[in-house]
């Protein structure tokens, strides 16, 4: 199986590659449109700010390439957020693959922003990719989150519920970092690679 990890320009995305290699995969880290289009699975990682991440995708002429992908795609953390229409962060316009707007997390009253740490998730809709990780713990680092919607597969809580995993068609997104979420994270990545989709 060929796996393309989109080189979206962030400094610290090599941990995603390391996690895939621990699973025995041989991911290609690439910004090449043809390589991305022909991969069996595409992973869109990302950390940092929504506005600058979109600028980098545009500079590399990848926004339309990603929108038109038909194979399973997994956005991780900011990569998940980029799948949505817009964000309160920088009032960014994003890929618009999944309807909705990212909102800043509430702070105060025992709630810290960024939300940084381990949370358990709760499955809200059945899906072959997520069925074995209901109730498991994952490592989150984010200041913006997708509200719960019809595209939500799993939720977590930071004061209020937010989308931990989303899916629309062939596009999946995980707000947490599966590459840094111990066995539970490896189980999700493995499921994304192995589940026939």
């Amino acid at each position: 199986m060929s796996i393309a990890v989109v080189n979206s320009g962030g400094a610290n995305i090599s941990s995603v590659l390391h996690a895939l290699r621990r699973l025995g995969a041989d991911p290609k880290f690439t910004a090449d449109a043809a390589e991305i289009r022909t991969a069996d699975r595409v992973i869109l990682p990302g950390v940092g700010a929504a506005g600058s991440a979109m600028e980098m995708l545009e500079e590399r002429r990848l926004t339309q390439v990603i929108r038109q992908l038909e194979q399973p795609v997994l956005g991780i953390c900011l990569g998940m957020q980029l799948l949505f229409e817009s964000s309160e962060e920088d009032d960014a316009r994003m890929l618009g693959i999944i309807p909705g707007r990212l909102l800043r997390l509430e702070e105060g009253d025992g709630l810290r922003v960024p939300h940084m740490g381990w949370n358990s998730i709760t499955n809200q809709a059945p899906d072959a990719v997520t069925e074995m990780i209901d109730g498991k713990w994952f490592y989150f680092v984010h200041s913006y989150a997708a509200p719960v919607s019809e595209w939500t597969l799993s939720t977590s809580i930071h004061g209020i519920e937010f989308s931990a995993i989303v899916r629309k068609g062939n596009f999946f997104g995980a707000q947490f970092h599966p590459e840094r979420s111990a066995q539970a994270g490896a189980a999700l990545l493995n499921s994304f690679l192995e589940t026939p989709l």
Partner: protein
Amino acid sequence: MSQIVNSGVARRIIPCLDVRDGLVVKGVQFRDHRVMGDIIELAARYRDEGADELVFYDITASPEGRSVDTRWVRRVSETIDIPFCVAGGIRSVESAGRILSQGADKISINTPALEDPSLINQLVKAFGSQCVVIGVDSIADEGVFTVRSHTGTPDAMKTPGRQTLDWLTEVVDRGAGEVVLNCMSADGTRAGYDIAQLAAARQILPIPLVASGGAGAVEHFISVFEEADVDAALAATVFHSGQIPIPELKRTLAAAGIEVRPC
């Protein structure tokens, strides 16, 4: 005692490993045997024991003006599947970028931030708040908390003349994503975390706060979470000596009603 709010986020337990020239400098005792030196083996064992995160601190880098050797960072990132932070000797966007590109999840800066606070803004702009941890060494003297710098070697330590709470306010304004507050009066005493100082810091910090310095018993972890409402507790000796195994610590915390990630 303040009422802790269950926000949904587990409180984190963070072992801190001192590194010099790519080796862990203190021996570490696990339940079965003693491991000396090898970063990868120690990191993997703490991962297996249920540590939520690791901090690697190059104890000599900053005072000598060196930057950390980054080759081991990549090996750690390849091996472990929990987050880790690298501290010590990072004094520019370029040196931070080198560490992050090897797979570290966060970098922590201390003295260089005091010398040039705008470095915090530069790092946040380059990598995002979530990567930028500010380490603060602080001493309590008659209820007044003041910052120390160059603490890696005792002879080089300086008092930059900043009050700790003012400095914490400034680092938040500059976009820092997390603070590790090392209370030096408590450090090494194993008599407990400095609850008063950490609680004062908690009052003004909207970002995650990691307690450091003074852990000597399981009860100290319970009280620092309950009374100072910190997000994470960092310790070295009690974990390295094997005195407090992490699985047992987490079971005790859970039984006390403190939310932790099960091992």
